[in-house]
């Protein structure tokens, strides 16, 4: 008997058109939990480093988190894992929404795709009935449009649909998988789906998902609900509003964008506009948002309203969440009206909202600086907004210069040459990042930017405040009910941390303290990604309802595993290290672990070296970032150790 999980995966060979229901090993769930953890194990076992993103041998895995479908509030995420065409490393983008719980209710924990379909198809899972269906009539359709058409033709309005748009079909390196109000966008996983000729994965389930210890589990759920209410009534003082509450940053609810528009950079992550937010702009943008937003909406079983339904005049309705609200606006130096309008088209095409606008702004910079010429943009409109629509269309159709830009700024710059490389300046591991440029090095963020294999800062940070509090009274008040810390030493670090002077950045928190803080923050994200828990109620905000002290209880009561903090910490370290091992086998090394080159003005090379050395050591990696034999043995990853020795990555 399996609890909280179903114990079955679907294995789909798209080349052959075969479908198998495969029982999984419960031991693997104890060792790697579910979601990201067991996804990574499948990739390690079955996708060797010689397998390219667009090889039929590449797997595309849709994994529901271990606790998805249970009453654990906010536990609804689908973790999609594959080899990325953009980074050539493991991509493990995720999406909230309603898809993962539905998969559990249909009786499966994962859907694993291999091969390539000869024609465009979609997979329809309806409990025990699973079939590949013709999708040639959906070719070129938008991702949201596709979902609506499929639900109609199946006469199943309660089905959940994850689909790609034209960008995925044309293998744009930053194509997303869209699912109603949510999307898995980073790393170009939509391109892999398109390469496999898979237009959508549709699921409907009406089976029971069983809990091991129901009474204990409900008690924990009740505590979480109470804590969410407590946090709603007690926002964290002395931080900016978007950091005070729970959930994703409340971009759909808030209309005041002074902070983002004046602190983040515009264009190709270039200009900070310190006096941008005038009364006039505020009035205009507030009007735009209020007119556009029909309703604030949530993912499955979650009271946080991080998303919204957006209706722009004359355009089909779509759904949005978080920061895509501003990326197109700021990439194009335009206004909110434009941003929300072009995001509608971008959502139907299915592209990542961080990368796409940055690539377009990058292309226009190359044009302005004579690296590209007008001949490269035949028929491009003269007006600013028109140019962005033009570029978006060229990219997703892979037409002309769009075919090069569709590979992202890193590969496009390489292909264009002629000095284009310096314009691809805001990447980590070949992937476009938030347009943030700062002054003084932040050693905590330095480590997260360098070593994060999610390659996206918002998916690593959280838990520890971003800045020190000015007065001791404020700090003492903050630590008083800080129950989430794994160890009281973190409270002391925060108490001693000063905005300036001896105990301030970059030398305080000290190197060892920074390593511990980053290790804690990263660990919580990795646990979330195995359980399917949204970071918005856990690893991302300050003082969340889920933390290292109640998570083991949730897992024990849900699955029946014998779990405690030490075991959970070890499990998270095990699959985190396995993910590193996958990327190491694909050639990633210390030299790749650098922040965007101009992220900070003031850099400290010696300190940075010290930080990375110490962090690698803490993680059990050698000075090149490779997990050591001892570390691998401790985690029961001897099979990785052996593979590394066979391949000459580690000395025998």
């Amino acid at each position, binding site marked *: 008997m399996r609890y909280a999980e179903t114990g079955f995966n679907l294995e789909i060979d798209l080349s052959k058109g075969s479908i198998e229901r495969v029982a999984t090993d419960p031991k693997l769930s104890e060792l790697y939990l579910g979601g990201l953890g067991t996804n990574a194990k499948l990739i390690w076992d079955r996708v060797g480093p010689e397998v390219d993103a667009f090889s039929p041998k590449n797997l595309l895995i849709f994994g529901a988190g271990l606790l998805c479908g249970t009453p654990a509030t906010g536990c609804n995420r689908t973790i999609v894992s594959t080899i990325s065409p953009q980074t050539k490393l493991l991509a493990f983008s995720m999406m909230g929404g309603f898809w993962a719980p539905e998969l559990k209710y249909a009786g499966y924990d994962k859907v694993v795709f291999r091969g390539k379909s000869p024609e465009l198809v979609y997979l329809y899972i309806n409990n025990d009935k699973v079939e590949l269906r013709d999708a040639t009539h959906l070719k070129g359709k938008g991702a949201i449009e596709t979902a609506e058409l499929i639900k109609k033709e199946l006469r199943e309005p309660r089905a959940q649909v994850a689909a790609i748009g034209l960008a995925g079909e044309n293998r744009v390196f930053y194509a997303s998988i869209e699912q109603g109000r949510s999307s898995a966008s980073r790393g170009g996983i939509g391109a892999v789906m398109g390469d496999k000729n898979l237009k959508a994965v549709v699921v409907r389930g009406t*089976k029971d998902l069983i809990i091991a210890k*129901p009474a204990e589990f409900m008690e924990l759920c009740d505590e979480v609900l109470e804590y969410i209410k407590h946090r709603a009534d007690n926002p964290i003082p002395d931080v900016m509003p978007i950091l005070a509450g729970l959930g994703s940053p409340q971009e759909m609810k808030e209309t005041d964008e002074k902070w983002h528009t004046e602190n983040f950079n515009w264009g190709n992550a270039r200009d900070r506009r310190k006096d941008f937010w005038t009364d006039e702009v505020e009035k205009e943008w507030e009007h735009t948002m209020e007119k556009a937003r029909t309703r604030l909406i949530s993912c499955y079983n979650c009271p946080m309203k991080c998303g919204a339904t957006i209706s722009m005049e004359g355009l089909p309705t779509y759904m949005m969440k978080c920061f895509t609200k501003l990326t197109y606006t700021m990439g194009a130096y335009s206004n909110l009206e434009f941003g929300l309008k072009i995001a509608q088209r971008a959502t139907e095409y299915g592209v990542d909202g961080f990368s796409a606008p940055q690539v377009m702004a990058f292309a226009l910079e190359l044009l302005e600086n004579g690296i590209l010429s007008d001949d490269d943009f035949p028929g491009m409109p003269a007006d600013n907004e028109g140019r962005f629509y033009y570029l978006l269309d060229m990219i997703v159709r892979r037409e002309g210069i769009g075919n090069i830009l569709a590979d992202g700024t890193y590969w496009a710059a390489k292909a264009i040459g002629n000095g284009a490389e310096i314009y691809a300046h805001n990447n980590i591991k070949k992937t476009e990042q938030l347009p943030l440029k700062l002054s003084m090095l932040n050693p905590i963020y330095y480590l997260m930017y360098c070593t994060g294999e999610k390659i996206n800062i918002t998916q690593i940070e959280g838990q520890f405040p971003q800045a020190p509090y000015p007065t001791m009274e404020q700090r003492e008040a903050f630590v008083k009910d800080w129950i989430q810390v794994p160890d009281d030493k973190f409270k002391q670090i925060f108490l001693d941390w000063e905005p300036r002077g001896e105990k301030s950045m970059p030398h305080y928190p000290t190197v060892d303290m920074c390593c511990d803080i980053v290790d804690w923050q990263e660990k919580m994200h990795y646990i979330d990604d195995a359980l399917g828990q949204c970071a918005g109620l856990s690893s991302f905000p300050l003082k969340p309802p889920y933390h290292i002290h109640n998570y083991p209880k949730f897992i024990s009561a849900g699955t029946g595993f014998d779990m405690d903090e030490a075991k959970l910490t070890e499990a998270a370290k095990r699959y985190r290290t396995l993910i590193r091992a996958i990327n190491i086998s694909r050639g990633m090394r210390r030299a790749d672990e650098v922040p965007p080159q101009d992220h900070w003005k003031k850099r400290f090379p010696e300190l940075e070296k010290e930080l990375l050395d110490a962090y690698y050591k803490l993680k059990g990696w050698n000075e090149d970032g490779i997990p050591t034999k001892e570390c691998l043995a401790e985690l029961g990853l001897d099979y990785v150790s052996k593979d590394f020795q066979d391949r000459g990555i580690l000395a025998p």
Partner: protein
Amino acid sequence: MKKIVKTININVDKCNGCRACELICSAFHAVPKYSSNNPARSRVRIVRDPLRDVYVPLYAGEYAESECIGRDQYTIEGKEYDECGFCRASCPSRDLFREPDSGLPLKCDLCDGEPEPLCVKWCLVGALSITEREEEVDGEEVKLTEMEIGLESLVKRFGAAKVADMVAQITKDKR
């Protein structure tokens, strides 16, 4: 005598479409309590169509033996709702408010025995709330147990004789 009338107030403007109500309803009515989760067994279902901004929580009402002769289709403020979208009946024309495996009808019991229905407790966004009022009624109220409701519907569907035979058969098999 006096009876307490409980009303669930549904504010569709506040619904965020998260379906926590469906989930917790199915968990509460599982046997043993909270042992399983399956919104398809829930006695509250959200008529939900995000792109048309339709979010209407609907509670399971009476069991209907047969379908209506006609159907109804609502359009409100230009939004088209599902056929029979607002009907609360557990009816042969559709699978709504019937157990997905046995087809037995489901009916909201306001989570009998709990201080408040769990759908209300779990709706932190305030779309669902409950009020109580006292009403004067004539005579003694007869309250049916869950088994009685279930058996009655089986009798209606298959006839008393067949159900009695089946119970006798199962009892014999069990021995």
